[in-house]
């Protein structure tokens, strides 16, 4: 029997390994034939969608890892738009709305409202949260 999962991620590199722990979990979910409904980056986890991050070559690129996994598992990488805006991560719409000098959202991530989190948690069999302190 397979299950569907919604995964909530509260932290990202370099301040937290929550994004890596969640990625490991999501890989195992897919390996066992289960489905991922949506991954929702919230709080400081939205940093994963920052297009202006420069990752040292000897450190993992959690953003690239998630993009590859989302392509494999065909699920959405959703980023809370309100949390992202507070942290300087904006798409073209937000750039225009707030007259900001540039956009900073990495391609492959989607800015969404909190309603998408509730929708995904209602539809999934399981919802799993990875807090910022996850190691």
């Amino acid at each position, binding site marked *: 029997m397979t299950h569907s999962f919604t995964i*909530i991620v*509260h932290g990202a590199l370099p301040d937290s390994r929550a994004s890596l722990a969640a990625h490991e979990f999501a890989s195992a979910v897919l390996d066992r034939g289960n489905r991922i409904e949506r991954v929702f980056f*919230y*709080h400081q986890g939205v940093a994963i969608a920052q297009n202006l991050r420069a990752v040292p070559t000897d450190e993992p690129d959690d953003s690239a890892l998630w993009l590859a996994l989302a392509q494999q598992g065909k699920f959405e990488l959703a980023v*809370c738009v*309100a*949390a992202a805006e*507070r942290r300087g991560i904006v798409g073209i719409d937000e750039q225009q709305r707030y007259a900001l000098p540039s956009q900073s959202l990495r391609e492959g991530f989607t800015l969404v*409202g*909190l*309603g998408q*989190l*509730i929708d995904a*948690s*209602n539809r999934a069999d399981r*919802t799993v*949260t990875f*807090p*910022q*302190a996850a190691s």
Partner: protein
Amino acid sequence: MKRHLFVFGARTLQRSIGRETLDAVLVSAAFDVPVSVLFLGPAVTALRSGQNAGPYGEKSMDRQLSVLTEYGIDQIYLCRDALKRWKLDPDRLALSPKALDQREQAALIRQHEVVIYG
């Protein structure tokens, strides 16, 4: 709609994290999701009544949380042990939360199909 339990832990005392977790609770209620809220560890101090505003005029946490009532959210719980540890007066708490021991907290978690940590 699945029953959602939002857990306010230590990190929700950071103003931005607490605010964002509260936003998720309110959006859930706006979508007619049955919502409960549980405060654990030092997060119980967010419920202390009569807190001062922040040094830059930010709303105090108890004032921010008062919006839960406006959204009809009255299933509010806190950890009984934390209440004692942080020496809070049960009669001086915002939102009239119900204190639960660990066994009751486990039962509360089991009653909800979705548990989201803040």
